[in-house]
């Protein structure tokens, strides 16, 4: 599913960072654990094609990201990858339902209302679909961001510190939710975290 080899990145200040090779088979999950500041997020951005590597290759689902043009990369990312960011990102001028609908519309135009309702129901957002996103609680925002990472049934879900802001109970819940949704969508999960609590939930993990 995701394979990297000899991946390295050079920061603007000249610091170079090399990353271990990973190989993730379809449907399997991977946990990347590392302390703050070791380049976890950079690793994730490299794998998602958001940053250009200094050297090395990333291939997702058999596609070598280095070979894609900028435009093809945008389309590929939109279609195959779902993101769950550490910070909550959504469009503030749209309500919950429209945020989900917007994610469905690109890059392949779809307007699957059933999918939205079903996902919102499972994530406890069914009664909030027509709420303005700014009116949501922190927990609801987090669940909306998870929904935004899953709604288009991506092949791979990159989650960056999904539990860092949560207490033990909620952290458990979110991990279970992610695993469950990934299973339903037949997606692979790649989670990067410094949170040791997450470790016990996944068989595969590497340290950075």
């Amino acid at each position, binding site marked *: 599913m995701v394979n990297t080899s000899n991946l390295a990145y050079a920061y603007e200040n000249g610091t170079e960072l090399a990353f271990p090779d990973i190989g993730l088979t379809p449907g399997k999950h991977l946990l990347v654990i590392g302390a703050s500041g070791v380049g976890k997020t950079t690793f994730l951005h490299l794998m998602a094609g958001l940053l250009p590597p200094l050297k090395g290759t990333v291939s997702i689902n058999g596609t070598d990201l280095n070979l894609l043009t900028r435009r093809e990369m945008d389309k590929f*990312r939109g279609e195959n990858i779902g993101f769950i960011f550490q*910070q909550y*990102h959504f469009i503030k*001028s749209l309500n919950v339902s429209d945020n989900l609908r917007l994610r469905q519309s690109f890059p392949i135009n779809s307007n699957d209302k059933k999918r939205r309702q079903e996902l919102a129901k499972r994530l406890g957002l069914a009664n909030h679909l027509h709420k303005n996103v700014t009116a949501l609680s922190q927990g609801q925002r987090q669940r909306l961001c998870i929904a935004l990472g899953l709604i288009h049934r991506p092949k791979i879900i990159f989650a960056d510190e999904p539990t860092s802001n949560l207490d033990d109970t909620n952290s458990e819940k979110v991990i279970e939710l992610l695993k469950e949704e990934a299973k339903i969508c037949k997606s692979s999960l790649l989670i990067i975290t410094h949170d040791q609590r997450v470790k016990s939930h996944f068989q595969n993990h590497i340290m950075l």
Partner: protein
Amino acid sequence: MKLGYLAFKNMVSKPLNLLLSLLLLSLSVSLVTFVLQLSQQLGGQLSKNIAPFDMVVGAKGSPLQLVLSSVLHVDVPTGNIKLEEASKLQKHPFVQTAVPVSYGDNYKGFRILGTPPEYIDQYNAQLSKGTLYNMPFEVVAGSSVAQRLGLQLGDSFISSHGLAASGGETHKEHPFIVKGILEPTGAVVDQLLITNLESIWEAHDHGEDEHHDEDGHHEEDEHHDEDGHHDEDGHHDEDGHHDEDGHHDEDGHHEEDGHHGEKEITSLLIKFKSPLGMVQLPRFINENTSMQAALPGFEVQRLMGLLGSGVKTVNGVALAILLVSALSIFISLLKTIRERRQELALLRTYGLRTGQLLGLALLEGVFLAFIGFVLGWLLGRLGIWGVSQYTQASYGYALQIKSPELLEIFLLGLILVLAMIATLLASRSIFNLNVAKTLSDV
């Protein structure tokens, strides 16, 4: 979901910014379109009204006033001239037609004009009902007058003295009767009640009037309000009721002068046979007679020239506001694009290309410009409507609410281009948006 929907939602998510930008934009648009319409319609109306006549001969005074009063029927006349003297001009070789007009009365604010039927022909006005007038006190009503006052054939009415609706003695002994109603012409004829010269003379013929004394008094008392126009020929009632306040004749009285039999008219409207007349006759009349000749074309041009500088000033102000509104759109978009950097980066992860993000910003700018234009245009037309109510009531001239004109479409184009330039300048940061860094920024 279409990008247009998102752009719209983004636009309305900042109501105060939106309000300010729209306010500035619509203000400038309304100013430009309002002034444009006003000057165009006024100019069009004026040239249509003066078209039939090349020269107007009346009592000495301001030539502009003479044209305004005798041709456009908005001002008070400069005074009267003797029919006998004016008639000599009718035989002049350069003169094709000469139409005498005489007035001084109104019915509910609409002027009653004494003139031969030729006058109606000059404006190509056709009768829609009835016949022309043959006898004194028979009247043909212009279409607007008939419509506004609900006049029907056979209706009779009593005129009031003077040109203003309020005040003034009424000529109870001489009711007018409506014999015909004209088709609309869009010219000043629509606003007039037309009768023959004799009606005017008879209505004011105090020598044979049994209410002579009473009338004489009223005449002087009721018209004190209209001042400012001094008439050198100011005539007094023959019975010796001199104006105690020293007022000259200023409201177009047409009562006969001291010596009976000498008919007076207010002015003579002349169409030339040859352009030479335009060169020679006015000077001849002004130098050799007690009358004054004025050229409507020249006077209207002078008037429009005065108006034109006003139009230019307002347009300048409107342009300045337009530039300020473009600046406000620029600043507001610059601010919101900065604020939305993370949302734009998020959209990049959804698979949107840089070009699509730019399109999103452009759509927002264009929406704003378009809505601003439409609001401003409506506001401008509302202004025209308001002014029309006023001019209709005071001068009998109505302005039309017209559909968008070519020049206004150009204005829309200009505004759209300005808005796009402002948006592009404001959205340069989209081109070097660092998605990875922006998304991980706290």
